[in-house]
């Protein structure tokens, strides 16, 4: 057999292997995107829950998470990595926004707590002072009435 023919056969065989490997890589990429995407969405949800526990209103975060969930579902139906990428992008946006919102909520919560405690202490002090003043007035009035009699 001519060496050039053997070489040709080997080249054809090698090209088939290369094509098969490309398909395998392609499928693997789509699968890992799906997993990554789902994990991103779950991670963003956890961040939103933490933010909610801190007292923030997370409605806007849930709206964005639902957008991400739609892309995730669409990606699963069509096995399209573009949808998974979009879901991941939105989920990461949500996670960042959740962190900021949580910091803001904690800060507001602290301010509210300080204000409430201060107002309570001042209120209690005013009531104690007022009671003392009322007591003094009553005592003076009683003394005046007793002396006049």
């Amino acid at each position, binding site marked *: 057999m001519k060496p050039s023919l053997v070489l040709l056969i080997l080249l054809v065989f090698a090209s088939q292997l290369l094509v098969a490997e490309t398909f395998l890589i392609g499928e693997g990429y789509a699968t890992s995107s799906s997993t990554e995407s789902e994990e991103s969405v779950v991670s963003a949800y956890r961040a939103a*829950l933490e933010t909610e526990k801190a007292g923030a209103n997370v409605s806007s975060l*849930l709206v964005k998470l639902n957008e991400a969930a739609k892309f995730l579902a669409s990606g699963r139906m069509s096995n399209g990595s573009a949808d998974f990428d979009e879901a991941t992008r939105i989920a990461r946006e949500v996670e960042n926004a959740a962190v900021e919102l949580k910091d803001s909520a904690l800060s507001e919560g602290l301010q509210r707590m300080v204000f409430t405690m201060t107002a309570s202490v001042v209120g*209690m002090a005013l009531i104690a002072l007022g009671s003392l003043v009322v007591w003094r007035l*009553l005592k003076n009035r*009683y003394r005046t009435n007793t002396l006049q009699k």
Partner: protein
Amino acid sequence: MDVKEYRGWLIVGSLALMLLAATPTLALYLKIPSGSERFSELWLLGSGHKAEDYPSNVKVNETYSVFVGVVNHLGYSAYYNVSVKFRNQTQQLPVASNATHSALPTLYEFNFFVGNDEAWEALLNFKILNVERSNDYMIVNSLSINNVLFQVDTISKRDETRNGFYYQLFFELWLYNITSQSFQYNNHVGLWLNVTDFI
């Protein structure tokens, strides 16, 4: 009245008012548990968006609609999954009493997030596409849900009592559990369908 009698009432009144003034601060630290039950609602409505006119006798190649909805009363924002499945009269149904889901494959699913005391709803259109029938048996080969085709190949024996071939399209509600980091089966609702094989 002696002034000393006023003193007693004044002290009591002052203490009561001071307690009232301290209430907002106490409320920050004392958490009174809510007595209300925590749960999720799952419901189906007919095409008229009411709890009536549910599809029951369905013809092949005709589209039917239902609304599926979930309301969150869990006290926190929840991540839900609604899985749509299809069965004959003998295949496994979820068992709500011991929180066991059906082992049948999910055909179509919704994944969504719902805030506390908020609701989610979606329209579901389905169509039985391809059936094979003999006198006593029917096989539903395929159906579509929201224009997505599913190969189901589900066989049903004629129900002599009700005189028809009965299948069930049912919806399982799953709730994401943060601790176990997975969805857990919660509840289900279903629609019984008597499939007739031609318009």
